[in-house]
């Protein structure tokens, strides 16, 4: 009898965990099913806990670790878009980005339109930091750029503004997810203003001492060191200050956010 019980336990245990696994799939695939949507909402609450706890812990504006030149990765994996297609970008590349503009507009007192040279003449910061991809890998690189805070200060952020939305020149094909294909879309990102004014948040133009290569976001990219790689928008053309993320693409505040990833990517 004991033997039957033990075998039964094993079979029951295996069947039970199989059912649990299948149940997890059901919850994810069947948004129309009763309860699964609210279950997903409960799970999404964890994003709020992470954001609040990190905002609390990082309240003093703690810096991301900076590394030694000898720590710089020999190969820095280029992810996402490796070359924005299109005639416009090709022309800019041919012109050495002489006519590339970074516009700053939206809820600002003085909209700006800056050339790459003008940004290069602003006070600069150089930092050697670790870039963490949401997939799990990391690479260390040296970045030089203009801190974003003073640029936004020059533009004069209006009271009530909450976010900066970064518009990029690349259209990303996307990767398979949820068992299907991702839809292509224009890349964009957004940050809370508190992260824009962090001293390590840069509009970067140099990487490892040379102008940004095309796979790394030439001529201008965002560095926001305390968050994951997908927040570091490449090929940035426009920064719009706003009080809402609604109305842009999927309304979740970024290309990957619209495809289910966390808006706050400090984890």
């Amino acid at each position, binding site marked *: 009898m004991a033997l039957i019980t033990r075998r039964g336990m094993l079979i029951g245990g295996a069947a039970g965990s199989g059912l649990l696994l299948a149940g997890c799939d059901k919850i994810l*695939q069947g948004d129309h099913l009763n309860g699964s949507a609210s279950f997903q909402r409960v799970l999404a609450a964890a994003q709020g806990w992470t954001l609040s706890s*990190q905002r609390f812990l990082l309240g003093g504006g703690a810096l991301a670790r900076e590394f030694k030149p000898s720590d710089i990765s020999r*190969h820095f994996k280029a992810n996402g878009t490796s070359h924005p297609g299109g005639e416009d970008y090709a022309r800019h590349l041919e012109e050495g980005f002489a006519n590339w503009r970074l516009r700053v507009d939206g809820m600002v007192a003085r909209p700006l339109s800056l050339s790459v040279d003008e940004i290069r003449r602003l006070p600069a910061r150089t930092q050697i930091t*670790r870039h963490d991809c949401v997939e799990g890998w*990391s690479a260390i690189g040296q970045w030089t750029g203009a801190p974003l805070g003073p640029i936004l200060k020059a533009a004069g952020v209006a009271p009530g503004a909450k976010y900066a939305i970064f518009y990029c020149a690349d259209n990303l094909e996307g990767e398979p997810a949820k068992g299907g294909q991702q839809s292509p879309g224009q890349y964009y990102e957004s940050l809370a203003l508190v992260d824009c004014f962090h001293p390590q948040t840069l509009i970067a133009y140099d990487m490892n001492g040379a102008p940004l290569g095309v796979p790394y976001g030439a001529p201008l990219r965002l560095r926001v060191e305390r*968050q994951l790689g997908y927040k570091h928008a490449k090929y940035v053309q426009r920064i719009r200050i706003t009080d809402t993320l609604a109305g842009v693409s999927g309304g979740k505040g970024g290309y990957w956010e619209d495809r289910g990833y966390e808006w706050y990517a400090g984890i």
Partner: protein
Amino acid sequence: MARNGSSPNEVIYRHTFLVRLTHWVNALTIFVLIGTGLNIFNAHPQLYWGQAGNSADRPVVAIHAMNTAHGIRGVTTIGSVHFDTTGWLGWSRMHGQWIGRAWPSWITIPSFVDLADARHWHFFFAWVLAANGLVYLLWSLSIRHVQRDLWPTLGDLKSIPRSVLDHVKLKHPTGEAAKRYNVLQRLAYLGLILLVIGMVSTGLTLSPGFNAFAPWLLDLFGGRQSARTLHFAFAFSIIAFIVVHLVEVVLAGPINEVWSMISGRYRVPREHG
């Protein structure tokens, strides 16, 4: 189960309500964390040692599908040793079709590629694990459960060789000896507490935001990629614990053991006459 003429087994109150509650929350939480963790691993199925590491660097562990003279095979590499793991790791079947994925679909949550949702689930249940563990630890320390029932005495430590032998012979304690945890149980449960602390702290070291708050964790674990590797190593130590734990439950009398973790009441096995 009283037999003819013999007295019924003694029943003791073995597990307090909080131990039982946190045990089952832990069980469900770790189940989801392992499944979603393996799904997350599949997004970049390589582990490194150091601060950084990506496809251009030499991994310490890698699971891939590879083109070989014998067709596509699943290959798992640990250090410089390659293992053919076709059918299990690297190259396995999903709904009858062969696909390249590090961990097979039957073990990951969800079964399909879904890094975004796997992360949402993982972080939600990580919060539950941490909160549940904290409640358990504070409560257990305050009622001296850890000190009394888990911390081994000198006598316990001296009995390790005998206890190992008993376990190998599948001999389970009876009578008075069965009313307290034996030394291997004590060490295993204390070890699990340390492993969960290790999981939470290596997990937090993977967060670039948390790195800015506690950069010393990067030094403690030797970098973010080392922490990712350790996160994985600790997870597999927990899986090893669970396997041994379940085998022991089955061997020791599954109904009595499981029921005692539900009701708290444990039927003490009688001394062998």
